[in-house]
């Protein structure tokens, strides 16, 4: 994905106040078909999809045997077939993992269709007005985490409501040959092209874990980023045994923090966080929030001090960071009714 097209501030403003257009270049897309497709996805992913109905989408984690995360995926249900969508930063490894896993699974076919399709996203409090032009039913009927098959210019397009900024958010999964034309059309309608940097800020602000950023320098488990709620109890998924061992032995807990307004430079990943008489954790990620006008971030800290509302210090500085409750801010769209 491109880092930015104009400036991150302008693109951020489009995402939070109007409509941003995102080209998810490098995203992974795989079709999973066959009588055992649901069983396969329930084994390689952490969530059961047995009850996923046509037109519904759900998020699921792909784990290694040791319980560390390969990727967070979105699974779209097309009747008895499924389309798996993978965030660009994790697409290469996750695609290889899924293709290899399918080799040992009878009655399931996994096909990499990443080149055949392009994902274009619309995000922002006004994005629903633009997305409505591609639907022949009221957009309010398209629930969060659902998708619809639409026809556009003779192309079969999947339109999903699977935003990641906390604003109204939609994605078009369009045959790649038609993608430049759709992109041009969306720009003509007034969408502002946005890059990864602005998107990453918005993701952080609403606490969507950015797996490629949010770590202490090595592989992470769902517990490290607060995604343990994506582990279905009763589901025999790859990595489960290792995670059960890990949860018995504990580990540091993730927290969100906002920095003192005087902090001018983002602390690097791994910067120690302390109380007045001990180091208790490290910074895992940090971005500048234009809305909050300060640095915000995540950290992992000792479980005994992990809570919202704590005053900590960046070790070796006089700068305080205060842990807060996610999300960092309330998305603009929360006050915008779907017409």
């Amino acid at each position: 994905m491109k880092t930015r097209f104009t400036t991150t501030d302008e693109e951020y403003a489009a995402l939070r106040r109007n409509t941003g257009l995102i080209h998810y270049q490098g995203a992974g897309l795989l079709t999973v078909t066959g009588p055992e497709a649901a069983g396969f996805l329930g084994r390689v992913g952490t969530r059961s999809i047995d009850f996923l109905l046509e037109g519904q989408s759900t998020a699921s984690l792909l784990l290694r045997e040791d319980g560390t995360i390969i990727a967070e995926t979105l699974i779209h249900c097309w009747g008895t077939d499924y389309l798996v969508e993978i965030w660009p930063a994790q697409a290469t490894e996750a695609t290889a993992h899924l293709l290899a896993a399918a080799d040992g699974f009878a009655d399931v076919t996994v096909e990499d269709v990443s080149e055949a399709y392009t994902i274009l996203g619309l995000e922002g409090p006004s994005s629903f007005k633009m997305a409505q032009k591609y639907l022949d039913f009221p957009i309010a009927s398209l629930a969060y985490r659902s998708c619809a098959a639409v026809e556009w210019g003779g192309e079969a397009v999947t339109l999903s409501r699977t935003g990641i900024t906390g604003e109204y958010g939609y994605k078009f999964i369009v045959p790649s040959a038609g993608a430049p034309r759709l992109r041009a059309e969306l720009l003509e309608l007034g969408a502002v092209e946005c890059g990864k940097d602005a998107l990453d800020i918005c993701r952080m602000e609403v606490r969507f874990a950015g797996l490629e950023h949010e770590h202490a320098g090595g592989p992470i488990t769902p517990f490290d980023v607060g995604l343990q709620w994506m582990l279905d109890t009763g589901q025999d998924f790859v990595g489960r045994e290792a995670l059960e061992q890990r949860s018995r032995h504990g580990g540091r807990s993730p927290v969100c923090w906002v920095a003192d307004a005087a902090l001018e430079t983002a602390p690097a990943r791994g910067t120690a966080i302390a109380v007045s008489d001990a180091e208790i954790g490290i910074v895992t990620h940090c971005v500048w929030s234009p809305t909050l006008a300060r640095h915000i971030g995540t950290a992992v800290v000792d479980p005994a001090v992990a809570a919202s509302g704590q005053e900590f210090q960046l070790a070796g500085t006089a700068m305080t960071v205060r842990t807060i409750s996610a999300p960092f801010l309330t998305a603009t769209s929360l006050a915008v009714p779907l017409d």
Partner: protein
Amino acid sequence: MVMTLNEATRRAAARQELCAQVKILLVDRLSLDVDPGSIGDDQPLFGRGLELDSIDTLELAMAVEDTFGVTVTDDDTHSLLSLNRLVDHIERARA
């Protein structure tokens, strides 16, 4: 003012206890098929996360009022964005 380790530990224990109570309340009153201990403090309650709906909101508001004596009105939508936000709301109202 940066806390000492003792202060941070004491305060976190109280907060974690309240979070645990709210998690149990959520699971019990909404009959959720999840282990309360698996709910993250920053886990979203609606949409992504626990995937609650508007009917759950009403039940949750009643449960919070019954248990903690704290009202959650239509104006408090931002307090339902995560478990931690709800706990903030309860703490503020009881302060």
